[in-house]
């Protein structure tokens, strides 16, 4: 083993290391527990990698800075937790509308409001999808292990660049703060995506014209093309328009950009699912407890599997349907009062009984709690 590339680090550190390996060269943020280590790490790493780090006056300004840097060509990110994530929503919507590639990390803690600063929760799952107003495209991914946080951090930048869209990386206090062994990739072997370029270097006049993947060919500011960026409905030039046809086409194009490319975005894991009679569906750090519960139950002879969506949105509907087919029971543990289960209930309907395991007291969901739910206790 090459010990130089093996580390024993916190999830938040792994997130920062992944960002650097993905080519991140701008961080605009405002510290908030339990996400602060990401900012702390990048404040040291970015200057060494020709990047810029700015601590802004608040989370709203931080998200604004992220958008500005991204429009100028930077691979741009911010990191926050619940209360800060709420503040970022307005500008996050701007980034969705203007199709600005960026990565927003939310290391979830309890809520609503200030909640509990340094205890775990998964209570921002639906906010990550629907936090900003209007029908908007977004990618949300929720890794489980520290190693996976590193890989998903890289993937988040790739998805943001490829589809010119904000990507939300959802961690939580457990996997953000826990230390675990990770193996960093050889930088030469990491596949990196860059935003699509316009067909001409200068004087490109249709920044919102789309390529075959539905992604607009927006030049970077300062490269020789003039264009307009707005949160208003706009046409190909980027200037606002009231034309109903253009407005409708824009809204459809925004959603289609993510939905039509779902096979390129979705990622999930099916663990001992095929012969399982009961299926646990879990994500983020709760999936650790879920997998342990499945392992223990298997040893006792119970046929239990785990389906773990990594990409929460867009939702891997077909994969969920396939995993759940023929199962007698679905158990959904979440450190909230039942959020992703709403999505699952929509997909799975009423034919299969779904048991929820919910907890918001700041303690993790234990394997025992999940085992009890599977056993019907």
């Amino acid at each position: 083993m090459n010990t130089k590339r093996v580390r024993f680090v916190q999830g938040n550190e792994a997130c920062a290391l992944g960002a650097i390996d993905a080519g991140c060269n701008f961080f605009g943020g405002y510290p908030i527990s339990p996400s602060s280590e990401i900012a702390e790490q990048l404040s040291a790493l970015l200057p060494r990698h020709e990047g810029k780090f700015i601590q802004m006056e608040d989370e709203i300004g931080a998200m604004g800075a992220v958008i500005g840097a991204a429009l100028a060509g930077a691979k741009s990110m911010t990191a926050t937790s619940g209360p800060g994530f709420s503040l970022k929503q307005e500008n996050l919507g701007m980034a969705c509308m203007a199709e600005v590639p960026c990565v927003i990390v939310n290391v979830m803690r309890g809520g609503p409001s200030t909640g509990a600063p340094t205890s775990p929760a998964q209570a921002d799952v639906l906010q990550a999808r629907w936090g900003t107003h209007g029908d908007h495209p977004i990618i949300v991914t929720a890794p489980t292990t520290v190693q996976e946080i590193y890989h998903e951090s890289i993937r988040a930048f790739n998805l943001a660049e490829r589809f010119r869209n904000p990507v939300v990386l959802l961690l939580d206090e457990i996997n953000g703060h826990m230390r675990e062994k990770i193996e960093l990739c050889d930088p030469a072997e990491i596949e990196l995506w860059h935003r699509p370029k316009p067909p001409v270097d200068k004087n490109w006049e249709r920044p919102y014209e789309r390529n075959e993947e539905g992604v607009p060919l927006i030049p970077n500011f300062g490269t020789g093309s003039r264009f307009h960026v707005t949160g208003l409905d706009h046409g190909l030039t980027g200037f606002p328009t009231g034309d109903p046809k253009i407005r409708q086409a824009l809204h459809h194009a925004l959603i289609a950009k993510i939905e039509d490319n779902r096979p390129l975005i979705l990622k999930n894991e099916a663990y001992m699912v095929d012969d399982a009679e009961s299926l646990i569906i879990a994500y983020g750090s709760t999936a650790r407890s879920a997998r342990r519960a499945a392992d223990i139950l298997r040893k006792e002879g119970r046929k239990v599997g785990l389906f773990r969506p990594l990409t929460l949105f867009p939702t891997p509907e077909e994969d969920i349907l396939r995993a759940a087919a023929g199962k007698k029971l679905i158990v959904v543990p979440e450190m909230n009062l039942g959020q992703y289960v709403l999505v699952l209930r929509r997909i799975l309907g009423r034919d299969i009984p779904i048991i929820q395991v919910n907890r918001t007291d700041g303690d993790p969901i234990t394997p025992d709690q999940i085992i009890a739910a599977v056993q019907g206790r």
Partner: protein
Amino acid sequence: MARTEIRISGLGGQGVILSGYIIGRAAAIFDTNFATMTQSFGPEARGSACSCQVILSEERVLYPYIRKPQILVVMSQEAYDKFAPELADDGILLIDSDLVKINGRHGSAVTFGIPATRFAEELGRKIVLNIIMIGFFTAMTGIVKEDAAREAILQSIPKGTEELNLKAFKRGLEYGKELRAKGTSKTKAASKPSRPAAKGKAAKASP
């Protein structure tokens, strides 16, 4: 090695978190085990209670929190009082014997003491008490290999402090080995709730 749960606890400023980090790192990177480490966050400023949890296993560690630790390291009385009751019956309790007076809360777990803070002061810097404790931990538990612990220490400390830290590690390790050589039967007796250790002698009595 099956799943081994460890809690390290003491006062903020004693290097509790770094000890857990080094033990986890030693096992995960310089040995062939899997490890997770989680730490308490809260009002753990210098001088108040502080603890971290380390789990070592041959398999990937899934649930990263302890339920009934097999090994408890305590460097303060408050930490002993708070965490001793959760220790497994066949567990191992390691204490700084000058700072902790055992009073039976740890049940039937075996107790070993070392005057780590005093040794650290003798070495010239009280700050290395946690490294002495890691040496002691390595000798008494055998769960982390000596070389792995040494390597993890070297890669986790500020440059220029290698000599002092290696001395500290050695001091704890050798004290532990001597203790083991002398046998442990008396320790077990001394740790029984029915026979609370004599005042201030918890550690010296332990061999």
